[in-house]
């Protein structure tokens, strides 16, 4: 059996060919990175732009990073976290309109990618997330959209594993409160 075929699923094993390795990394992680970004920003277009930015940046560092990466996923999500933070910082510096004025903005622009079965629920989650503090939103999306372990979240955010768990617990509580407030 061709060894390159056997290792196709694991991006790190296929160190011989950086192109194939990057391609398989992209195929495996791109939906996750997109989802992670999408749940933090307001529109599909922003999410696509930021996702493209993340992978372009990853590509630039790929030859150097390829061999030393232990978790490509948390690396990509670290890049994504920085990109999203940049994005909000830039938008805050020249606000087109204040976020507070449009609390349900995230849910107002459903794109074709949201033609999901649970469309209503997605819009609801987007809206609730946009009301949460940025920190909560980050940790929730890292955990559930990005599917990182607490150890990896700790690496991404530069905090302890336990602190990550605590932060996630609090964020979850706040998210549930938000949902329950909606129901009432």
């Amino acid at each position: 059996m061709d060894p390159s075929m056997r290792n196709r699923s694991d991006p790190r094993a296929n160190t011989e060919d950086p192109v194939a390795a990057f391609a398989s990394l992209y195929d495996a992680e791109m939906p996750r990175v997109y989802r992670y970004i999408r749940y933090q920003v307001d529109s599909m277009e922003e999410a696509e732009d930021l996702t493209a930015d993340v992978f372009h940046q990853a590509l630039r560092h790929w030859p150097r990073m390829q061999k030393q990466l232990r978790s490509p996923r948390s690396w990509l999500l670290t890049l994504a976290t920085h990109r999203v933070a940049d994005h909000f910082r830039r938008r805050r510096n020249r606000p087109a309109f204040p976020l507070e004025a449009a609390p349900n903005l995230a849910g107002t622009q459903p794109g074709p990618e949201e033609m999901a079965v649970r469309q209503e629920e997605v819009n609801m989650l987007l809206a609730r997330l946009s009301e949460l503090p940025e920190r909560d939103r980050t940790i929730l999306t890292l955990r559930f959209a990005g599917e990182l372990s607490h150890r990896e979240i700790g690496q991404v955010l530069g905090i302890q594993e336990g602190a990550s768990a605590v932060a996630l617990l609090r964020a979850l509580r706040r998210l549930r409160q938000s949902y329950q407030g909606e129901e009432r």
Partner: protein
Amino acid sequence: MSNRYDESEELRARQLAAQLEGEPVPESDEESSSLTAFTRSLPWEEVRPQPEFRRHLRRELLRQLPAPGPRRPWYVRAALYAGAAVGGLLILMIGLALGGTRIGGTFGGLDERGGRGGGPAAVQPDMPQSDDQYEQKHVPAYALPSGIQPSPVPASGERMVISTAQLTLIVEDVEVSLPQVQSMVQGMGGYIVDANSYRTEADRLAATITLRVPADRFQEALSQLRALAWKVESESQSGQDVTQQYVDLQAQLHAREATVKELEALLAEVRKSEGNAEEKAQAILSFYNQLSMLRSEIDQIKGQMQYFEQMSAMGTIVVNLSPREPKVEQPVVEEGFRPSRILRDAARSLVSVFQALYKILIYLVVVILPVLAAIGLPVGLVLFIWWRRRRRQRAV
């Protein structure tokens, strides 16, 4: 999906958090399980990138990575590089060779044919080789240079052109060809102005003849000379139109002759007139001075006109006759092929190449490196600082 919300990991993490920070774990298992259920109810995985965007970005990214392709074994790569190098050299050499023939004269390509001192050598239009046809087209056997400006035609109505030609011929035997040339020239009513003969390195006779033939038989003489050759090595023709000068001279002549006539008439009058003898003598003397000056000018002009007439009446041909080197008769070994000499030349160029390399190296060390260092150090320092700052910013 690999690690979608691992409950046991979540629980472990919360316990760890409790130990570390005294943070209350969920008060009850009830809350824990309800949170888990809540989390499960959220549509985290429902959001997907559009397939179109996903494909597009993938293509864009992969295009930026250099495709390494299957790695060939070293000997295949070596062979490919060698082939490329040889091909490049070949192209270079062909280019040089082509450039060389262009520079080396248009008539160099006429090869062994029409030899044996016999029939018309240079013009055989049905020769198959295209190279030869190219050469033939450029043998100026018919026309004089066409760039001559039209200028006033002298009274005789003919243009006055001084034609000259240069021919370098390789003949079987100069000692045979020389008398042939002489008899040809005499037969045409021309003459030989100048003839030099000498011995070549191979102790064979060679000669340079300058001859003049009547202008109307100039082309005929050229073609006959070519017919003598085993090979025409080079040929050039030129014509100098002196009609303008000749007409000018004619005008000057007429003017002076008219003046002379008038002066002579005046002189006769003065002689006849009666008056002071002394004054008369003075006047006559000055007339004589004038007249003699004019006459000598007239003689000069006539001489020049005569020169032009003679020169244009006869065309001048300079013929170089070289013997055919006997070696050429063995076509296997080319003329002047000496391996020892080639070897020496090659060694010499090898040495000069190395000398040039050493020179470059010395210049590099003595001149260029310090200059580069002087320029490069500050620039490099600035770049380095900038790079580090950028890196730090990115890390933040």
